[in-house]
């Protein structure tokens, strides 16, 4: 195995997640695509990984890599897992396509100790959905599809997401944004400017001891 070349080619968000994960841990990647992240984690961090992926191509590619991947989706299949089955649950860029984001977020922290959620911004997201639904590479950024050809989604801003976590009593332990050139910047304070320039954001979440709305939390 050529870890060096793997290291060079890994996607910035995958690399970022790999840095967050403890070696040898158990991890579930929801929307794992072709299994690239799971393979990276198995290779570099000896992670015992499982995946859920909706597309046949993605599942086949993953299974071909020797990964354990179930064809399914986050809205229906998370309920199958026992409590605390995983150390980490990763939800990568799929939140806006989920029918019940609220229920899924709660499920993430039921079956996993720590949830890692990445939120794409709308433009990036449109490209990714395009890839998922059409099976082609996204059009170059800026040359977006006309509105009537885009998939139907529920736009979610970073601010929306932070508010929802607050309502559900979910702690945001860490928050990182990756800009369009793959540069990482870390946030810990307010989200005031996040929507303006974040290409995508990666959140590390855990359950608070109490689920009551934390009134003492700093406002974003």
């Amino acid at each position, binding site marked *: 195995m050529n870890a060096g070349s793997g290291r060079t080619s890994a996607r910035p968000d995958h690399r970022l997640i790999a840095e967050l994960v403890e070696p040898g841990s*158990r991890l579930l990647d929801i929307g794992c695509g072709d299994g690239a992240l799971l393979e990276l984690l198995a290779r570099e961090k000896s992670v015992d990984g*499982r995946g859920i992926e909706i597309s*046949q191509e993605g*599942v*086949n590619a*993953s*299974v*071909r*890599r*020797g*990964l*354990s*991947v*179930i*064809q*399914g989706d986050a809205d229906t*299949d998370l309920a*199958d*897992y*026992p409590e605390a*089955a*995983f150390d980490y649950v990763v939800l990568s860029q799929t939140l806006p396509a989920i029918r019940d984001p609220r229920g899924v977020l709660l499920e993430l922290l039921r079956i996993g100790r720590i949830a890692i959620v990445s939120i794409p911004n709308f433009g990036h997201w449109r490209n990714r959905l395009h890839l998922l639904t059409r099976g082609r590479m996204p059009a170059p950024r800026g040359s977006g599809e006309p509105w009537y050809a885009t998939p139907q989604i529920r736009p979610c801003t970073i601010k929306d997401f932070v508010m929802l976590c607050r309502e559900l009593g979910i702690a945001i332990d860490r928050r990182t944004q990756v800009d369009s050139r793959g540069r990482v910047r870390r946030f810990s304070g307010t989200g005031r400017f996040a929507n303006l320039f974040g290409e995508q954001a990666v959140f590390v979440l855990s359950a608070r001891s109490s689920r009551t709305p934390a009134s003492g939390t700093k406002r974003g």
Partner: protein
Amino acid sequence: MPESATARVHEQVGLSVELGHETPLELDCGISLGPFTLAYQTYGTLNAERSNAVLLCHALTGDQFVVGPHPVTGKPGWWELMVGPGRPFDTDRYFVICSNALGGCMGTTGPKEINPETGRPWGLDFPVITIRDMVKAQAMLLDHLGIEQLFCISGGSMGGMQALQWVASYPERCYTAVPIACAAKHSAQNIALNEVGRQAIMADPEWREGRYQELGTNPAGGLAVARMAAHISYLSEPALQRKFGRTLQDRSNVTYGFDADFQVESYLRHQGQSFVERFDANSYLYITRAIDYFDLAADYEGVLANAFRGAETRFCVISFTSDWLYPTPENRAIVRALAAVAANVSFVEVVSDKGHDAFLLDEPDMFETLRGFLSGAAARRGLGGP
């Protein structure tokens, strides 16, 4: 009835072994069976570490001839596309075993064979068997062959049920398991379909309470009807529509009679006719009954997940979109139970309009999935490439 074609050939071809001399097979019904014969075939070579064995389990009407030509029909084997050099179950790499199921009629002890206590065919005196009994018999075969652990246990339909039972009964003997197009229990509709087949056989006056061999009769009519009814459940409506539609058979107009006007009718009649040439009516009763009785969760406090708790077996579950005998939700229930014990499982629903029989047919996505899964597992198991 003249001695059947199957009876004539099974001594001439293939392997068989007599098992249960010292320790008989303790059947679920409480009866001890032994000695008994298990007929089987092998393909490929067992490696020095005995770590490359694959046991394939056949479906209701299948047998041990995974790769053809079949000794009775002369046709290709039932999993010709899956097994052989370069196939997903690569015989250059794996040692593939398939045995005729207990209760079957291709050489393994079943109702057609002679009951040593009476010197006459068993008929309905043969004990009712279960999927677990079939698996116990196979485990005795592996003991005989000196194989401690299977690299893979696999099969479709009833074969998939056996694969599930294998992991439940002998988790440490299954490195991987690939149950295809199956279920952890037989549904009410499926019991009903099997019951129609049994009633068709038992309503045939030539069945003679199962003693047709001795009495020289042949419940071929009933068995053919049973096969026809079952065959419809193996195909999807779109597949039938594409294959036959309302096309007439060798005629330009309907005949206003009860001949096979439509191609689908003559196809079905052919299915029924060719089946009776290679299958035993009583075996059909016994094996359908074993399938009806299958309800893996029932043996584990009603919780399917408990059947797999602690198993380190790596699973690959495959279903087909148009399978209405064991539809995807039934397969997904297995995946769900495995997830509930955080087992190692992959799952693919293959898009196909070919119905339940898709697992026997040319489905590239199934081949690709299996190839990938087996290669990954083989690398972990330290099995070299072909």
